[in-house]
């Protein structure tokens, strides 16, 4: 798992490199996640919770690829999540088909195409858009999609689509439980490894440059917008995968699955854990979802949980932009920094 902390992250200069913490965190997380279903063998509802967490962390990772690595503030990541989820539900309903070896790639394709389309509209073209415009464009995309879907009878309108055909492999159907958890974990692992390779590669270097100073990179001759579109498309396909898994697991999808609400939640997951590190969003999702599950039983908190989350976001944004991971991982090692960028 450790393509060691390479040149991509640390400027090769004098001072001795501190012990790389990130790979250790990654390994520890992997170990914990693998052990979980065995530890929780007799608490099926907790396995269900953890499966959900794994699926949602995929969404958070997709956001991190956009923001933490490329500086694209995507306020509408849930758009790809939700649309893929709907497509899966429709395929299950109208075509009665839910074989995972076909539908999951389909979800990724849908997510990727949609992201490519949105990227083409927002990013490419003669005039370079401001980052505010891109952020706002993604928000509007998600918002418009949500309103469209909420009024469209074919996709269930406000009711959403329920009783989604279970994900299947041959004759076997996946319900919540150990098997689904394993599938989710394996997929998360694959996506994680692929992403890690990408961000440590030469492409990753370009992304890092983009993140630090877009204009300068453009002057070097790199077509910055094209790279942004590429990574946005990739992130979109991951979000699509996440959305499909979510639909299969929950058995339900609705307009809220594509809107700004869920998108912002993904942002919170990622920022809280620590953006720009890939493992940060995973940890963030785990932390927030576990916390909400545990605290939810306390009456007083339940009423104001959303307020607390808002405060968490505000605090993170104001005081600890590097998130939880920023507390333990040195900024040298972090594959990206949240901090101040030139206002564009």
């Amino acid at each position: 798992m450790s393509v060691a902390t390479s040149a991509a992250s640390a400027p090769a200069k004098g001072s001795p490199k501190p012990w790389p913490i990130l790979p250790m965190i990654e390994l520890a997380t992997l170990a914990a996640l693998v052990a979980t279903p065995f530890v929780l063998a007799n608490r099926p509802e907790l396995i269900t919770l953890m499966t959900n967490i794994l699926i949602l962390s995929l969404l958070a990772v997709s956001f991190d690829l956009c923001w933490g690595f490329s500086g694209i503030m995507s306020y509408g990541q849930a758009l790809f999540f939700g649309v893929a989820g709907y497509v899966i539900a429709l395929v299950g309903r109208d075509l009665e088909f839910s074989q995972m070896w076909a539908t999951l790639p389909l979800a990724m394709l849908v997510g990727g195409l949609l992201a490519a389309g949105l990227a083409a509209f927002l990013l490419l073209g003669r005039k370079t858009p401001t980052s505010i415009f891109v952020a706002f464009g993604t928000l509007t995309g998600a918002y418009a999609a949500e309103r469209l879907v909420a009024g469209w009878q074919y996709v269930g309108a406000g009711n959403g689509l329920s009783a989604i055909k279970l994900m299947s492999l041959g004759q076997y159907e996946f319900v919540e439980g150990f098997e689904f958890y394993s599938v989710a974990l394996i997929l998360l692992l694959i996506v994680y490894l692929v992403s890690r390779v990408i961000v440590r590669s030469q492409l990753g270097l370009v992304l890092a440059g983009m993140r630090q100073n877009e204009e300068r990179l453009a002057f070097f001759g790199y077509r910055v917008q094209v790279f942004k579109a590429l990574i946005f498309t990739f992130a979109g396909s991951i979000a699509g995968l996440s959305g499909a898994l979510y639909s299969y697991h929950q058995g339900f999808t609705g307009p809220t699955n594509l809107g700004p609400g869920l998108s912002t939640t993904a942002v919170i997951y990622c920022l809280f854990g620590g953006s720009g590190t890939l493992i940060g969003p995973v940890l963030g999702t785990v932390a927030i979802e576990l916390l909400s599950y545990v605290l939810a039983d306390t009456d007083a908190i339940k009423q104001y949980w959303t307020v607390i989350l808002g405060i968490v976001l505000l605090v993170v944004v104001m005081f600890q932009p590097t998130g939880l991971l920023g507390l333990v991982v040195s900024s040298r090692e972090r594959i990206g920094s949240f901090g101040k960028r030139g206002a564009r």
Partner: protein
Amino acid sequence: MTGPNLGRRGFLSSAAALSAAGWVGSVAGGLVLRPGWAHAAGPIKMGIATDITGAIAPSGNANWQVAQFAVEEINKAGGILGQPIELYLEDTASDPKIAVGNVRKLIQERKVDVVLGGITSAMRQAIKDPIVNRGKTLYIYPQLYEGQECTKFLYNTGPSPAQQCDRLIPYLIKTLGKKRFAMPSANYVWPQLLNKYARKVIEANGGEVVFEEYYPLDQAEYSATIGKIKDGKVDCVFMTIIPPGLQPFVKQLYESGFQKNGGVLTCVYYDENLLNYHPAQEMEGLVSCLDYFQAVDDPFSKKLQEGYAKKFPGTKYLFTAGSASTGMYRGVKFYEAAVKATGGKLGREEVAAAMDKAVLTEGPGGGAEMVPGHYHAKMNMYIAVCKSTDGKTRYDIIDKASMVDPREC
């Protein structure tokens, strides 16, 4: 925007969706109520999945309280065949997405024997699969809705469109003499299916539907609609708009002088709670048809209200028909009757078979009877008109129909 203090049908919401409230974290309020004398010999576990927080909270809290009230009565009388009922609450938070997760808790963690709840149709659609299919548990849905829910092991204890329209519309056409109908509606499934049914009844009784239109839930400007109402000489508005678009529409309708010129506004989800959403003068003359109004002169119903007020003094959550409370009461009592009939056995198949034939002799607004094989119940239906005096509104009952057939499935 989010739903109303009376939800039911699949309203959901573009705007509710907007409010990140739903999506941030899964907020579940797991709560257990166990009577003091519960003993290990298998209490009956009843799960309530309703909206304690979020836009539908006013209805959700009302029917949670009614459930507690009904169960307490049963337990005080010794439970069902000696077994006490344990109540488990999960908050569906007015968001189907969160609801799915929390309902799963009821099934997997608490292992309840029956789930009652869901208010909006969107909620019902979302949670019925985890309960009935994946969870293999009995599900009772207590709210008035658009009908056509014929899932096995899913019992509906709220009024169906037939029950609400079959007498109301003839009353409007024949007694009040209003023949030209307009159907301004919120754009989702409940109004669409309800309108389909209502249109049939209207035309069968010699009335005419001048126009039927659907608006986004947060539509605020209805000038075009009011214009069509005036031009089409509509004298009866069969409204299925819900908040937040509701208040602007009613206000604009009133300001256009519709009621002054003899027009009648009718809406089948209006209960006492909803009257408080508008200034009194806008509500004068509104006609509603529900399974219960607090004005109903029935000693048992009055006793229920007193008992409820004693258990929850000064509560802002009223025991009304619009908040799924009457259906919840019926649901709890039907379950009690069914378990009594099976001799205490709690298996889904047996209880369902018994519930299919269950009969209640008393309830809010009167008794109720399950129609065997049809998953719906016969109940009394009342037509009421809103009158306002000195800025205070109340309902006057003008018609009662006994044991109306739901005509579903």
